[in-house]
């Protein structure tokens, strides 16, 4: 049995949950009559991609709609999945789609409430083009009290010729999952 001997010290970013809450950071550029800032994927991207896994991948915001978000995964030599071809690995594409999914849910609901991925399926239609960045466009097509359903595509320029299709289900959890969702109470400590 493996024992995890690594003690995580000096973690790379010290952000608390609030620090990545784009609403808290949104400048007050709306008129005085406007209600509190709604989640905005473009604005949120300025904070999300500074840290952690998505920062390491170098994800960028490209486009958004009422219930969808598109992000870009830039092409990078060290993200290759196959030594014989200069094509992005499928792993980072899952990360791209997972992140675009979460942001599509926040975009659709207008609020930044934590979500947890329950199930994510990626069907690869073809390899990305050589040295091509990949964009992930995901829409949240249905939300219930506790679940959010997403679908989308990964493409490298032509929306009609996708690299992959994705479908996913996310659970919505409260601001503090340990308090708001009793089902997750046992998960809080290892």
């Amino acid at each position, binding site marked *: 049995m493996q024992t*995890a001997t690594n003690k995580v010290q000096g973690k790379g970013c010290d952000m608390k949950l609030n620090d990545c809450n784009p609403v808290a950071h949104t400048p007050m550029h709306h008129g005085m009559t406007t209600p509190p800032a709604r989640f905005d994927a473009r604005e949120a991207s300025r904070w999300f991609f500074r840290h952690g896994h*998505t920062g390491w991948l170098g994800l960028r915001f490209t486009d958004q709609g009422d219930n969808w978000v598109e992000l870009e995964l830039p092409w990078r030599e060290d993200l290759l999945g196959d030594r014989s071809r200069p094509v992005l690995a499928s792993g980072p594409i899952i*990360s*791209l789609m997972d992140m675009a999914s979460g942001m599509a849910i926040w975009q659709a609901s207008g609020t930044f409430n934590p979500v947890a991925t329950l*199930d994510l399926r990626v069907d*690869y239609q073809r390899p990305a083009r050589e040295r091509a960045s990949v964009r992930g466009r995901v829409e949240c097509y249905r939300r219930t009290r506790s679940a959010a359903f997403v679908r989308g595509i990964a493409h490298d320029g032509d929306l009609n010729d996708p690299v992959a299709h994705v479908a996913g289900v996310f659970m919505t959890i409260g601001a503090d999952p340990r308090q708001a969702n009793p089902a997750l109470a046992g998960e809080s400590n290892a």
Partner: protein
Amino acid sequence: MPERLELPAYARSLGIVVIGEEGGMPVLSVEFGPMVEGRPQHFHGGATAGLLENAGYAALRTALLAAGRDPQLKPINITVQYLAAGKSQASFALGRITRLGRRNANVTVEAWQDDRSRPIATAVMNILMV
């Protein structure tokens, strides 16, 4: 077995390593750190999927080497089930070949952290061999 296994650039870049074997199949691991962090102090779902996927390919490569085959592998699909939050400690993953055909392989992968009996995520992958 693991020494003949070469992980792709993406896996090496994320810090994924082969740390041993179980039942003849390689066990892959990745330490917790900023590169895999999503929600503060937790694994990003995409990083967990990356570990699962690499463990799936590593298992398939191992089985193919044993059978004297060296085809190019192409992903058909992957379905990831997230079972528990990945906490700020090392994660491990192991793939099992459910079916190895001539053109298609079906691989099941499981990832865990400190408790081997409590997986944090599983995946099923279909991989095309050409």
